C-alpha cells in the first residue's frame, strides 16, 4: 500500500511541477474569459455604425419623420423634388451610404416595391431596422384607417410567456428548460473531455515507461498493478487539482469582475434598462437565466459530477493504460489501438445530446446505466429528476464496471509492459486478459 502511495506521489508531483501544468491551469480559464469577453464586447458594440440614408417617400408613408428603433444609429434624410432615378446614381456622391425608395402604394396591401440601394450588401441588422420602422408606419396607417389609436392597439396586443413550474414535493421551483439543458450539456461535455484528456495522459505515461524500459526496473520493486493504479490515481488527482484551481479562479473572478466592469454586477441586471444596448428582451433573458440557474440542483450536480468524473475516469484510464502497455514504439500505432476505446466515449456523447432533448427515452435510460457511457449520459440527464433507483443502479454498475475492467486490464498491462519490439494483437490481449494468473 505504501508503494502505491509513492507511485501516486511521483505521478502527481511530476505533472503538477511541470510548467505546462501551470500554463494550462491558468491559461484555459483565461482563454475562456477572453472568449466570452470578446463575444460580449462584440454584442455591445452593435448599433455604433452610423449610416446616412437618403429617403424618397413617394407614398407619404413616413410623414418626413422616421420612427427609428432605439438602437438604430442611422440618420435618415428626406429628399423631395428629385427623381428616384437621378438619386439612384448620385446618392453616393452626395454623401449618403444608402438610398431608400418608397414608391406610392396601397397601405392595406403588402408591397414588395420598396427598394434600398447600396454599393455593397446592406448589413442584415440595418436592413431589419429599416424594415421594422416601415412596418410600424404601415401598421399605424392601417390602425388609423379603422379608427383605432395606437394606445388601444397596444392594450389589445398580447405577449405571453409560459412559466414551467416543477412540483417535486419538496420545493416549488422555477425551471427554465434552456438553462437546464445548458448546464446538463456543459457537465456531460466536461466529463467527456476529462475522460479523453486524462485517459490519454495515462496512456502516454504507460507508453513512456514501456518505451524507456522503466517498467522492468519498476516491476522488480512494485507490483505491476500498484504501478498501474498509482499512475491512474496520481493523474486523476492532477485532474482534480486542476478543477479545484479553476473553481477557485471562477469564484474569485465573479467577485473581481464587477469591480472592473460595473455592468457585470448581477444585482444590476433586473433594472438594466439603462444598460447600453440592453433591450428589454435581453434583460428578461438574463433574468430568466438567473432564476434558471437558481433552480438548478447544484448539490446533486456537484456530487454526481465528482462521482462520475472519478468513476468514468478510473474506468477509462485503466483501459487506456492497457492500450498503452500494448503499443510498441510507434506513435501511429497508438492512434489505431486507441480507437476502440474512444468509440464508447464518443457514443456516450452522442447519446447525451439526445438525452438532453428526451431525458426519459429508453436510449437515454440505457445510456445512463451502461457503465461505459453512463458518466457522460447521466450528467446530461441529471437535471431532469432522474429516479433515485436508476441513479443508484448506474453508480453501482459504474463501480463494478471499473473493478471488472481494472482486473482485466491489469492482466493485460502486466504482460504488455514487458513485451518489447512487436505490436500486440487484439487476440493476444484477449488471451492475456482471460487466462488465469
Amino acid at each position, binding site marked *: 500500500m505504501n*508503494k502505491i502511495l*509513492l*507511485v501516486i506521489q*511521483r505521478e502527481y508531483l*511530476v505533472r503538477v511541477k511541470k510548467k505546462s501544468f501551470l500554463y494550462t491551469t491558468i491559461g484555459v480559464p483565461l482563454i475562456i474569459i477572453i472568449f466570452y469577453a470578446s463575444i460580449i464586447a462584440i454584442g455591445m458594440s452593435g448599433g455604433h455604425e452610423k449610416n446616412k440614408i437618403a429617403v424618397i417617400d413617394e407614398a407619404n408613408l413616413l410623414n418626413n419623420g422616421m420612427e427609428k428603433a432605439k438602437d438604430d444609429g442611422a440618420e435618415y434624410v428626406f429628399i423631395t423634388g428629385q427623381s428616384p432615378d437621378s438619386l439612384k446614381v448620385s446618392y453616393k456622391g452626395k454623401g449618403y451610404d444608402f438610398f431608400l425608395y418608397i414608391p406610392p402604394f396601397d397601405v392595406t396591401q403588402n408591397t414588395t416595391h420598396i427598394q434600398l440601394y447600396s454599393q455593397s450588401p446592406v448589413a442584415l441588422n440595418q436592413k431589419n431596422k429599416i424594415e421594422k420602422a416601415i412596418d410600424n408606419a404601415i401598421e399605424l396607417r392601417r390602425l388609423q384607417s379603422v379608427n383605432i389609436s395606437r394606445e388601444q392597439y397596444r392594450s389589445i396586443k398580447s405577449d405571453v410567456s409560459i412559466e414551467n413550474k416543477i412540483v417535486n414535493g419538496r420545493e416549488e421551483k422555477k425551471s427554465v428548460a434552456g438553462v437546464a439543458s445548458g448546464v446538463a450539456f456543459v457537465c456531460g461535455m466536461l466529463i467527456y473531455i476529462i475522460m479523453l484528456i486524462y485517459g490519454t495522459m495515462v496512456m502516454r505515461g504507460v507508453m*513512456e*515507461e514501456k518505451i*524507456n*524500459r*522503466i*517498467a*522492468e*526496473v*519498476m*516491476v*522488480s*520493486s*512494485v507490483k505491476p498493478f500498484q504501478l498501474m493504479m498509482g499512475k491512474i490515481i496520481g493523474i486523476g488527482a492532477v485532474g482534480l487539482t486542476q478543477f479545484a484551481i479553476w473553481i477557485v479562479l471562477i469564484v474569485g473572478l465573479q467577485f473581481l469582475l464587477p469591480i472592473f466592469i460595473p455592468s457585470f454586477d448581477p444585482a444590476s441586471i433586473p433594472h438594466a434598462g439603462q444598460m447600453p444596448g440592453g433591450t428589454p428582451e435581453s434583460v428578461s433573458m438574463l433574468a430568466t437565466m438567473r432564476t434558471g440557474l437558481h433552480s438548478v440542483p447544484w448539490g446533486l450536480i456537484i456530487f454526481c459530477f465528482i462521482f462520475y468524473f472519478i468513476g468514468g475516469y478510473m474506468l477509462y484510464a485503466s483501459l487506456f493504460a492497457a492500450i498503452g502497455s500494448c503499443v510498441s514504439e510507434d506513435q501511429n500505432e497508438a492512434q489505431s489501438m486507441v480507437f476502440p476505446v474512444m468509440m464508447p466515449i464518443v457514443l456516450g456523447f452522442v447519446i447525451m445530446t439526445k438525452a438532453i432533448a428526451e431525458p426519459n427515452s429508453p436510449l437515454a435510460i440505457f445510456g445512463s446505466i451502461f457503465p461505459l457511457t453512463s458518466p457522460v449520459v447521466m450528467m446530461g440527464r441529471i437535471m431532469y429528476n432522474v429516479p433515485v433507483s436508476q441513479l443508484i443502479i448506474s453508480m453501482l454498475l459504474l463501480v463494478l464496471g471499473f473493478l471488472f475492467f481494472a482486473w482485466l486490464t491489469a492482466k493485460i498491462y502486466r504482460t504488455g509492459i*514487458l513485451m*518489447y519490439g512487436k505490436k500486440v494483437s487484439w487476440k493476444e490481449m484477449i488471451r492475456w486478459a482471460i487466462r488465469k*494468473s
Partner: protein
Amino acid sequence: MNRLEVKHLKKYYTSQKAVDDISFTLAPGSIFGLLGPNGAGKTTLIRMITGILFPDAGEIIFNGQPFNPDRDIAYIGYMPEEKGLYKKMKIGDQAMYLAQLKGLSKATAMERVKHWFVKFEMESWWNRKVEDLSKGMQQKLQFVTTVLNDPKLIILDEPFSGLDPVNSNLIKDEIYQLAKNGSSIIFSTHRMEQVEEICDHIILVNKGQKILDGSVTAVKQQFKENIYAIGLEQNPSPINSPVFEVINNKPHQLLLKINEGYKPNDVLLYFLQQQAAIQSFHEILPSLSEIFIKLVEGTPLTRQFQTVTA
C-alpha cells in the same frame, strides 16, 4: 546456507520453452556468471528470480526460504539490460524514488543516496535531469539505484555496456566490494573476457536448458585440450615425436597438442633429448569464449519457434 537455490525451474510460452528445467545454486558472496546466446532464456530466468514472472513449475529458495516476491524483493537489486529511467525526472528525486520503492524510509534513502552519490562523484547531478546525462552516466546512475538498498542478491545484466574503462573499473571494484560484504551477484553478459575476469562460477544456458555449470577454473579444466606452449631458443628441425602434434610453429614458440596417453613431462623429455634450450613451458587453457562457441555452435543463431506440449 545458499543465498539462492533454483530447482527445476520451467517457464513455457506458447511458441517456445523459454526456461526448461534449470537448476543451480548460488553461495553468499559469490559472483556468478549467467551466460548464453541471445534468446537462450536468460532474461526469462532472471525475471522469475526477481519476481516479475511466475514460474510454471519448479521452486526458488531465497535465503533458505521459498521465494516470496513481496517480502524478498527488498533484498534484490536488478539492473536490466535495457536501462530505463524517467527522462524528465531530476536525478536526485529519481534515486530517492527508487530507493523508497525498495522499502527504505525517506531518511535512510536520503542517507544511502547521498553516500553513493559522493562515492561516485555524482553530487553535482542532483538537480539535473536524466535526459541531460550521457549513456555512460546513465549507466552509472542505474548501477547506483540498483545497489542503493544494499541488496543480498544483485542481478546485473550487461552492466558495463557504454562505460569507459575508468568507469568500468569503478563499477567492477564496487562489485568486488559488494561480494566481499556478502552479497551474491548474478552477472549476465556476452563479454566473455569480463566473465573470466570477474566471475568465480558460471552457468551456460542454451535453448532454455542449462548446458554447463561450474567454477571458472573447473570449466576450463573440463574443456582443456592438452595444448601447451613451449618457448625455445631455437626451434629444432625437424620435429617428429609420437608424443605430440605441432599446431603452430613460430620462431622461438611452438604450440603443441599432447597425444592421448602422454604427459607434459614426455614433451619436455623429447626437447631435452633434442638438446633444445627450453625458455618456457605452460599449458594453454581454452578461453570461456572458445568454450562458449564450441558448446553453442551448431545450434541456430537465433532460437527457432517450436510447438510446446507442456
